[in-house]
């Protein structure tokens, strides 16, 4: 097998391994929130994959200056995104639950006042209009 062919297949193997690592660190099968460390891992793995594509698939390894420039620009973009996710973070575990009831009752039916024993003091009854 040609040396370059072997190198490309090795690169593909690395990219597949990193994709698997990304799937594990990103917990693709559970809707859980991720910790800040996992966000950083995802960012780093994404940048490493991008550098591999740039260097080997796009052959930028023959132009180290351009490789550093493209990688640096992508790394800054990913870093800004990851930091924004880390700073404005959701609770770590957010389980899906039943739908929450409406926060306020409709204005047309105010809740009846209750006595100490829990029974309503005024029971709404539909009466005929007084003549």
């Amino acid at each position, binding site marked *: 097998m040609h040396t370059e062919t072997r190198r490309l297949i090795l690169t593909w193997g690395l*990219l597949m391994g990193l994709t698997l690592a990304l799937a594990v*660190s990103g917990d*693709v099968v559970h809707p859980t929130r*991720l910790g800040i460390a996992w966000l950083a891992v995802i960012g780093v793995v*994404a940048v490493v994959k991008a550098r591999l594509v740039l260097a080997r698939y796009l052959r930028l390894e023959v*132009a180290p*200056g351009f490789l550093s420039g493209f990688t640096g*620009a992508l790394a800054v973009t990913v870093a*800004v995104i990851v930091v924004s996710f880390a700073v404005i973070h959701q609770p770590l575990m957010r389980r899906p639950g039943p739908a929450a009831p409406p926060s306020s009752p409709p204005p047309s039916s105010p809740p009846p006042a209750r006595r100490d024993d829990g029974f309503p003091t005024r029971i709404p009854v539909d009466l005929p209009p007084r003549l």
Partner: protein
Amino acid sequence: MVTKTSMGDRTSVTDFSVPPPAPHPRGDTLPGNPMMWLLIAAELLVFGAALLGYAGARALDPAGFAAAQDGLDRLAGTINTAVLLTSGLFAALATEARRVGERGRTRLLLTVAALFGVVFLVVKGFEYAAEIAAGNDLSTSTFHTLYFLITGFHAIHVVFGILILGIVMIFDDLEHVETGTAFWHMVDLIWVVVFPTLYLLR
């Protein structure tokens, strides 16, 4: 080059007509067509701006984005990443095959790369169908607007990439093949950043 050597009654013929691939000169010279690199830089800027905009919009409504993002099929996104990177391998192998003059093998490898691109689009189509069936479209939420715009714009690039691979199968000069596959790798590269941002970060 054909060399004939006579040694008594024996004649040996050695064919050196296919030269070994010349190594690329190292230095700060971009490989391939410079215009393609200009396009790659411009596309990266556009997608970079879109992803930064996504991060900004998410900062304004983290809970809404988290709830909407949980509806995405992250496994399908992972599979599509593997599909596109495998497609990129075949495109890179096609360039190498063309560099050593194997035109038939080049066309075969480009065809395989394009077929993987079609697989990507099919998986993406199933994802879109599931989202639409769940009642989500461009106007459902800010997250869905950005999700459909960014992934849709990328999918259009995949379609164009498949067309370009088809064109360079016909006009298969080395420079054309290099330029066409460079566009395809750019599509790879963009997805490598789009996938973790839209699907995984949360």
